């Protein structure tokens, strides 16, 4: 299962023990600058940096990373294609071709806009993949708390995270059990699927009830910070923080320099 793979990588990669806040600062700031940029240059820079960090610093298998990248790559290419065909003014054609007696014209503005969107998509995904692959969820919660996300949201997220795996296991067991009793037609498959989904939902409710009893058994009184226990309070390394801020400054500077410039 891909989720547990990402979770495992997050727990074992080489950047695991870098302070979560640094990783959060890096990926969020880079993401924001990338989104704000009006030229594809800063996103490409950000994408390369995040990729280098993921592949070389965190030593994550290139195969895993590229498999993950396939999704944003696909969306990026689709938007590049569509935008270059349907956006822009008619007076700046780059290239034209004919399919079924209909002429398609690739417009310059459209191509540029498509390129910008594709590069932003890739860069944004790379930033988030960096965070997801190097930081275990468990530590991300600390980072989120530090960012000032409300405690209720974090506690809910924590329990959801925990029970995703219980539910996944349950779903897998039920799916296997249905598979073992023979394969049916497409119609039966749909029926079995709806049955599994329904049962899973009922079990979720049941699990929720048990969870409530379990929490009450340990004196839970509705206060929201009961899970907010952290033992290790690490200090942010000034060197690393300065390096990140310097990178962000350079990226922001490049963004301003290259604003509204186009590649094509």
């Amino acid at each position, binding site marked *: 299962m891909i989720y547990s793979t990402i979770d495992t990588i997050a727990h074992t990669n080489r950047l695991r023990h870098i302070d979560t806040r640094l990783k959060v600062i890096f990926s969020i700031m880079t993401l924001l600058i990338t989104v704000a940029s009006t030229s594809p240059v800063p996103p490409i820079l950000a994408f390369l940096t995040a990729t280098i960090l993921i592949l070389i610093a965190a030593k994550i298998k290139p195969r895993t990373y590229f498999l993950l990248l396939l999704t944003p790559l696909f969306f990026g290419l689709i938007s590049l294609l569509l935008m270059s065909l349907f956006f822009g003014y008619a007076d700046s054609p780059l290239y034209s071709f004919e399919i079924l007696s209909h002429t398609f014209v690739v417009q310059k503005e459209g191509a540029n806009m498509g390129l910008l969107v594709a590069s932003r998509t890739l860069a944004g995904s790379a930033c988030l993949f960096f965070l997801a692959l190097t930081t275990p969820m468990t530590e991300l*919660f600390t980072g989120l708390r530090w960012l000032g996300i409300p405690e209720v949201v974090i506690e809910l997220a924590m329990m959801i995270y925990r029970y995703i795996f219980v539910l996944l296991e349950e779903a897998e067991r039920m799916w296997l059990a249905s598979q073992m009793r023979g394969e049916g037609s497409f119609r039966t498959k749909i029926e079995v699927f709806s049955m599994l989904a329904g049962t899973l939902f009922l079990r979720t409710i049941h699990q929720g009830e048990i969870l409530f009893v379990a929490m*009450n058994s340990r004196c839970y009184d509705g206060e929201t910070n009961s899970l907010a*226990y952290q033992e290790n309070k690490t200090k942010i390394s000034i060197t690393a923080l300065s390096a990140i801020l310097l990178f962000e400054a350079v990226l922001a500077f490049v963004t301003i320099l290259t604003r509204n410039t186009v590649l094509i």
Partner: protein
Amino acid sequence: MNIIDAQNVTYQYPDGTKALDDIDFSFEKGSITAILGQNGAGKSTLLLHLNATLRPINGTVYLKGEPLAYDKKGLHHIRRTVGMVFQNPDDQLFAPTVLQDVAFGPKNLKHTGAEIKHRVDEALRLVGMEAYADKPPHFLSGGQKKRVAIAGVIAMKPEIIVLDEPTAGLDPQGCAEIIEILDELNAEGRTIIFSTHDVDLAAKWADRIYVIHEGRIKKHGSPSQIFADHTMISETGLRLPTFVQTFRELKVRGISGGDSPLTMLNFIESVSKPFDVVKVRCAVAGTDVCAGEKVGLVMKDGMVCTTRVDIDMNAEITASGRVLYNAMAGEDIVVGGITGTLTQKNGNIYIVPIPRVIEGGSRAVDLVTIFKIIAEHEPLKIGAMGTSAKVVVRKAGIHCDFDVDVIQSGILAAVRGLNVMVFVTGGMVDRVIQKIECHNKHSGQEIKFSTITLQPKITSGVQVP
């Protein structure tokens, strides 16, 4: 003194099924009680009454003589006194990491940060899970999850620990480890109440057993009282413990005698009489064996009994015998034809107390002294009991011959003439001594035991410059 009492407790589920039907029970402080019954007998329902999760529709449960109060303040008091470990650890572990889960209870008890840290560390070390503190529960095995679930409860320091099927779904080793952790908690004075349908576990571990069937208490009493009632056992869908069954078969064949055994040790005692090698007379040929050596006896009817014997030097025959074959190193030498009065010699049991986790645990022990003690007493069989003793043995890289059922295995080895050294975690020493004395009294054989006290390790902070 009873820590929990209940009178006329009746509980009905919303759909109308009577889960508990007018039952009385009481649990003695510091005891281990098993609630034994088949699936659906009402065991879990009974346990859920103990921490006021369920409220009886009729009857009263008393905690330390006070009827349970079901208001907010009362529930808080009950739940900090009665800790509940669920059957499925996934139901209980809801925090994203082990550490946060164990800290959940103490945090709800509004302890200070330092106290929470102290309790969490102590609880995790007691169950041997300190290395997994930052792991999410889905990375752990079933046994490890169970241990974390127990740690989450002991971090709240409850006087009573209630466990629903503590060994369900665990492998034999995992099962033995859980029992040992609970034994250690019990040695600290905590009351343990658990439900099970494992009759062997109830027979060997519980002080008292309640048999529950279709929502009613069928019988309660000591394990020997319970398993003497064969009709009741079969009526309630249970079975007799393996040792009791085997004993019954041997008894009707005239091999075993005495009381029905509940543990391996009792069982061996019940069958060992016909094979007693004490004062066996044989004819001597050859002169290859010296007194005090390990020899085996070939008895008249051809039965081979290998045991360590001391040949009595006062007998008319000096120590000698014919070696029948060359045994491998470490094995007994089998000799034939010995005459003389042979007295069987039991091994000694050396008890080495190891400080408990709260007293510093394995860190308060100097490994060099451990090696010294072992070297002084070799050859030895070595056992470790309790968490910190096990850690010491592991740290020192000593091969452990027994790590489950340590007392029983140790006594059995001593009966075979081997010297045994058991590293015992703090509070459990008295229990070991009590068990050995009980065996000595019961069997008439004397196993000598002594306690070797370790000097406390001098930490650098105490040393005078």
